[in-house]
């Protein structure tokens, strides 16, 4: 299993640990529709399988989300990316980075993995066409060396999708 956290990442604080355990057990009782948590022994990094909602462009397609939690979760947002291959979407870069405000500037500690997942699925579902962001190549080139999307200065210019 690829369960060891990346070396740069600090271990979860006690509060983060307790909260994630609660989120996990709530998820097990009541998972969000269309999502499956792939069980590992690593609380700090979740792999979640997403299935596109019926009747949308992504129906029956499955993708994997990787959710990594910082030491001070939930004060700091989790890092959420699609494990490539990422869905073709105007707000999803080919390296899996997602342009979604709640993952960055609009994060709130009252949000949960579950609520983030629902937002991502709704973003997918409302897509009018399957295409990459217009600046995909430039952005992906700038993200070499495994830079986190949380270090990107996002500009949320389109609220429709």
């Amino acid at each position: 299993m690829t369960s060891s956290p990346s070396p740069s990442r600090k271990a979860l604080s006690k509060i983060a640990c307790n909260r994630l355990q609660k989120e996990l057990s709530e998820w097990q009782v009541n998972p969000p529709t269309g999502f499956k948590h792939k069980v590992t022994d690593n609380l700090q990094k979740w792999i979640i399988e997403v299935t596109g909602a019926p009747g949308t462009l992504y129906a029956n397609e499955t993708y994997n989300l990787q959710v990594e939690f910082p030491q001070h979760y939930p004060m700091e947002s989790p890092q959420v990316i699609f494990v490539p291959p990422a869905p073709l979407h105007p707000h999803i870069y080919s390296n899996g980075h997602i342009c979604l405000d709640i993952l960055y500037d609009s994060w709130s500690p009252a949000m949960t993995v579950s609520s983030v997942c629902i937002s991502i699925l709704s973003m997918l579902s409302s897509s009018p066409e399957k295409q990459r962001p217009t600046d995909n190549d430039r952005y992906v080139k700038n993200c070499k060396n495994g830079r986190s999307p949380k270090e990107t200065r996002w500009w949320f210019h389109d609220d429709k999708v």
Partner: protein
Amino acid sequence: MVNEESTSTSYWDNNNGGNNNDQGDFECNICFELAQDPIVTLCGHLFCWPCLYRWLHYHSHSQECPVCKALVQDDKLVPLYGRGKNQTDPRLKRYPGLQIPERPTGQRPETAGPPPQPEAASNLFNFGIGLMGGFMPMATTRIGNFSMGFGGLLPSLFNFQFHGFPDATLYGSAPGYPYGGYHNGFRGVPPHGQERPMAREGNQFDANLKNLLLIVGICVVLFLIL
């Protein structure tokens, strides 16, 4: 019998199965634990004070409620004081190493005051009892109590006889000091807002001295009648 038993069984099942809902209403919206030093925003969302403070002052770029994004103002936060626990053990601090100030204290509106003035008849009754109970203390106290006490009695009984009464406030029309409070003092129990009635009484004492004599007379007559 059977029904009752199955009901209680399912009650316990629910309790054990839905373990995360027992305290759900009292969980902090940030750490998801039972709120420590609980505090409620004006929009009604519950947090640990340390959790909310840390979010608003160390992490957030805005002063928004994490749940509903309503504006959060420090002076509008309401602490929740439950029973049996005064202070959090500092060793159990949620965020060791962070400077978290004291939780804001509750804002305390004035007490509601005693119940509304009873009817004249029961007023009279109180008056009589109070007078008897109040005779024992020192003379000055007695006079003070007396003049305060009859303020409650007078408007209802003797209004028509004292058209030119010198000080209208003697009637106890000042807000927040309904007549009932005077009866307290009358019985020798220290009134709640001791300073205020005493001070007022002092101001009016000279002005009322003449009337006082008159009223003592009336009261004696009243007593004889009773």
